[in-house]
């Protein structure tokens, strides 16, 4: 057996080196995107998790406020006396930006003395830390990363934007970006607790208390005891579980990107199948000989699969390498999106992860073998004595076409059925299954589709001038099976492109309409430092709001204040608004229900308004109750109304401002919307606001149109990475077209030679191959558009709805359909140029003479 492999296999890979190489490229690209996406997501998540971890230091437990608003530092007394606590450290935490370049960093306020048992900085310092400056002078210790970026050293001052204002802080020391200082990619600073509290205007407040216990076995017990003793708006958690929470929030995001990458890998399987089938076809004589001398099908299968393994291993290995390189770019993109939509993460290089790499390699390898098995079986099922012309196999496959049609239809029906199923947990497992079955089913119908169009097309072609179209159609029909596989791969890639773009396009226009509907006021004011991440929610200084209310140019003021809080168990944004003002501002478009009743119930403080994703993902209907942890304990509110919202898939709950102030005793706001007496003066008023407050408060003032544009920009950025994935899938498919045409011109060299012998000029030979390519492109584009539209309905109505809870108005952009119908055949035609020139270049003599 080993001999068989050694003697027969590897030569062929070398002989057809171009085709081998292209197939490897296909596998490599497929593996690369999967690995790149998974690594990028992993990198972003790990960056977040490790920031949490390093900042937690050696803490066994952490006490946190559930709403992110902190808790009174008096709690320390209750904690200290709990049995089993060895040491504790109070912490206040914020993410300010530096004044010079507005880049965020993590700033901790700590008790210098209790800090020692959790996090150590002195070992990391280049010079002694100026403790006096820290304790008396609001001095700050910076990580070297921040210090270098700012060009400051110990003894200098650094401008930091805190609560919208620039503060000059003395640099009390610089530490290496290691340990706690490695949080947020090394952008870290630490101050004395008291100084930080004063600076943040949050005296008497803590964000966290870190605890270490005397004995690790006491952790669960202590956790429970503390949770019981402490008020409802604080929670006692293990540091590790904080990363999990975030991961849960990001899972849908991760899953969707991974699924898209999976399609690219799926496309590369077609390539492997075709390559292997072509290979066994070319070697039919050799295989026949081996069988006639007694090689068993199992032996031959092993021999051929051993050969595929080489291809798969090399392809997958390159795929891993390429994946790591691509992950570099993807990680930044993913981090930017995660930061904009969910939590602040800073990535620095890709974090390699052995399981992900291993998975990628195994996927590439196993899928390649799986794709090869049916191709090898085709070759081995042919009776030994049958002198197997290439067409014999194509004809055998043709005979099975009707069975294939039935199977394809069954798969499509299953896809339809799966799309109707509810989500499993909070992931649309069956939705993804439905999408996959749709792609598989329509690929199975590809041979029938080709056959269907080939007949009439050939008839029509006899009436065209020139015989080349007819010959191209013949060339396709004689290799129908493999043309269908190449076309099928391209079709899948096109379907992915159309499906995702239509979904994104529908989504975008839905958001556009919503933005137009709900953003009606003239100017929008918030802190510039909040623009960094959805998780930054620092309030605007109170005097700004006070002053703006009094400006004669301002007719109405609408305010918004958001805090992050677990509602019914998972993190969401609780916003408070003046319900009537918000309604006036057009903010609220309800799914259903009596508007006046909804509004009055919400205004009374009995009810809250919940966003559509919130309602959908947590299965909450109008009138159901939601539990919100307030500083006074968990309170239950009626979900009075459900409104359309596209700002966050984590959900948004709106509470009347009066009720919020009653519960939280906090009247600060994060966003201010202004309706002007004369809307045409918006740019002037914008300038006035900037002039009035610019020197003291870092405000971001959007006009109506710039805010709309900003929201759409954010939207586009979110989907930027999907375009890259579509492009790679298309690239793999085109590689498939090239390899198929390459094998075609080799297999058909006698026909092409005969054509030359009877007077076909090089241009005609070239056109035949180019038309074949273009024809594949046309069929793939048409099939892809149809399948893609079906895919987009699954994406819009099933996957997106179940993953994120958006309701998207389905809309089809005809320009992209037209573009695909033009571009794909053109690209496919261009990809035929190389095979065509090979066909042209072969000498005539010799190809026609011998049997």
């Amino acid at each position: 057996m080993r001999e068989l492999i050694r003697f027969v296999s590897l030569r062929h890979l070398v002989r057809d080196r171009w085709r081998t190489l292209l197939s490897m490229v296909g596998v490599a690209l497929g593996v690369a995107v999967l690995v790149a996406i998974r690594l990028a997501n992993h990198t972003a998540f790990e960056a977040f998790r490790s920031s949490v971890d390093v900042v937690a230091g050696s803490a066994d437990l952490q006490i946190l406020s559930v709403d992110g608003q902190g808790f009174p530092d008096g709690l320390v007394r209750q904690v200290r006396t709990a049995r089993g606590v060895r040491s504790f450290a109070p912490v206040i935490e914020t993410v300010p930006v530096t004044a010079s370049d507005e880049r965020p960093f993590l700033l901790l306020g700590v008790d210098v003395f209790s800090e020692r048992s959790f996090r150590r900085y002195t070992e990391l310092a280049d010079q002694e830390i100026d403790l006096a400056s820290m304790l008396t002078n609001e001095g700050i210790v910076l990580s070297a990363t921040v210090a270098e970026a700012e060009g400051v050293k110990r003894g200098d001052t650094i401008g930091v934007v805190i609560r919208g204002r620039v503060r000059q802080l003395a640099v009390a020391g610089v530490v290496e970006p290691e340990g706690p200082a490695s949080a947020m990619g090394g952008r870290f600073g630490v101050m004395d607790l008291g100084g930080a509290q004063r600076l943040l205007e949050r005296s008497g407040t803590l964000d966290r208390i870190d605890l270490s216990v005397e004995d690790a076995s006491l952790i669960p017990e202590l956790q429970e005891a503390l949770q019981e003793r402490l008020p409802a708006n604080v929670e006692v958690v293990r540091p590790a579980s904080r990363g999990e929470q975030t991961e849960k929030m990001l899972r849908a995001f991760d899953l969707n990107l991974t699924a898209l990458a999976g399609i690219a890998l799926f496309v590369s399987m077609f390539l492997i199948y075709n390559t292997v089938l072509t290979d066994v076809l070319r070697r039919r004589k050799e295989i026949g000989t081996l069988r006639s001398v007694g090689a068993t099908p199992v032996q031959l299968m092993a021999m051929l699969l051993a050969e595929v393994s080489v291809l798969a291993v090399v392809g997958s290995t390159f795929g891993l390498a390429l994946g790591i390189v691509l992950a570099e770019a993807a990680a930044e993109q993913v981090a930017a999106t995660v930061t904009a939509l969910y939590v602040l993460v800073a990535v620095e290089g890709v974090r390699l992860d052995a399981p992900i790499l291993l998975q990628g390699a195994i996927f590439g390898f196993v899928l390649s073998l799986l794709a090869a098995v049916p191709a090898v079986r085709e070759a081995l099922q042919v009776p030994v004595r049958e002198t197997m012309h290439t067409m014999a196999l194509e004809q055998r496959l043709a005979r099975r076409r009707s069975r294939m049609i039935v199977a394809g239809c069954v798969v499509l029906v299953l896809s339809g059925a799966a799309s109707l199923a509810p989500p499993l947990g909070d992931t649309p497992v069956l939705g993804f299954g439905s999408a996959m079955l749709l792609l598989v089913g329509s690929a199975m119908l590809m041979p029938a589709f080709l056959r269907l169009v080939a007949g009439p097309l050939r008839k029509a072609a006899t009436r065209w001038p020139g015989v080349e179209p007819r010959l191209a159609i013949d060339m396709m029909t004689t290799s129908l099976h493999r043309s269908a596989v190449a076309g099928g791969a391209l079709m899948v890639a096109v379907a992915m492109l159309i499906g995702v773009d239509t979904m994104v396009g529908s989504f975008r226009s839905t958001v556009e309409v919503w933005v137009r509907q709900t953003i009606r006021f003239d100017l929008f004011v918030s802190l510039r430092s909040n623009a960094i991440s959805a998780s930054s929610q620092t309030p605007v200084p109170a005097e700004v709001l006070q002053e703006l209310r009094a400006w004669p140019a301002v007719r109405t003021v609408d305010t918004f204040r958001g805090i992050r809080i677990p509602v019914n168990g998972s993190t969401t944004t609780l916003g408070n608004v003046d319900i009537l003002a918000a309604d006036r501002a057009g903010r609220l478009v309800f799914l259903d229900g009596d508007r006046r009743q909804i509004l009055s119930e919400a205004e009374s403080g009995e009810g809250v308004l919940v966003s559509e994703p919130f309602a959908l993902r947590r299965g909450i209907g109008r009138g159901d109750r939601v539990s919100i942890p307030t500083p006074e304990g968990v309170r239950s509110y009626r979900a009075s109304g459900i409104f359309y919202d596209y700002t966050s898939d984590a959900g948004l709950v709106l509470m009347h401002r009066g009720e919020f102030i009653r519960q939280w005793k906090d009247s600060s706001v994060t966003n201010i919307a202004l309706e002007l007496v004369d809307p045409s003066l918006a740019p002037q008023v914008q300038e006035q606001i900037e002039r009035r407050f610019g020197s003291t408060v870092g405000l971001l003032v959007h006009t109506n149109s710039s805010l709309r544009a900003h929201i759409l920009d954010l939207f586009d950025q979110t989907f930027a990475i999907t375009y890259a994935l579509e492009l790679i899938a298309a690239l793999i498919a085109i590689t498939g077209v090239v390899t198929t045409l390459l094998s075609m011109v080799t297999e058909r060299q006698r026909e092409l030679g005969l054509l030359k012998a009877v007077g076909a000029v090089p241009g005609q030979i070239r056109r035949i191959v180019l038309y074949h390519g273009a024809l594949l492109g046309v069929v793939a584009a048409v099939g892809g558009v149809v399948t893609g539209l079906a895919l987009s309905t699954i994406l819009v109505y099933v996957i997106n709805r179940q993953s994120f809870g958006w309701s998207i108005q389905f809309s089809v952009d005809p320009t992209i359909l037209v573009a695909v119908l033009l571009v794909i055949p053109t690209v496919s035609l261009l990809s035929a140029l190389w095979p065509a020139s090979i066909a042209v270049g072969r000498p005539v003599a010799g190809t026609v003479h011998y049997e």
Partner: protein
Amino acid sequence: MSHLEVPVIEVSGLYKTYAHGGRPVAALRDVHLSVAKGSCTALMGSSGCGKSTLLNIIGGIDTPSSGTVSIHGRERKGRNESELALLRRREVGLIFQFFNLMPTMSVQENVALPALLDARPSGFVMERAAWLLKEVGLDHRLDHMPHELSGGEMQRTAIARALINEPSVILADEPTGNLDSSTAAHVLEVLLDVVRRNERTLLVATHSHELASRVDRVVHMKDGAILDA
């Protein structure tokens, strides 16, 4: 020279050397040959003596290492691949021993192929193909596919195809070499008959003495050279 003896094919000083695994193989050595218009000439000689090579070069599907070839006094030198293709299409008709037909085209389409490649109007071309097929006795097989034909029928189809563009020269490389003797005799009959009635010039490579006895002239080759020029 009577007008019948005007040379249509003129070959002089023709050499063809193949590089076979680094070692040069001389397939043709200083070949001189002229074929008179309207004549039927047989090329004979043992296997490997260079008959096919000579026909290929005359037919423009192979290129000489040196020497000249002309048809109707038009020199071959300096023609590019397209011009050679046009020569094959319009000035010569080729018939091979094996694999003469496009498997995906009907008999009639196969016959019409060189004319279709020439972008002639399809209706006219198909009619002429049908007429030629009648000439070779295949008018009942117009819509058949090549694999439905016998070997003799295939060769008769190839003969009809060779005539479709009315070339002055027909080059046939062992057209009956693959057929049993009675079929071979029939095909030969058809070939000579059609060529003569249409006043074409025929150059045919063959091992068949039967064929040799029925042509105007027999040229013998040995080791890449012509013996009795």
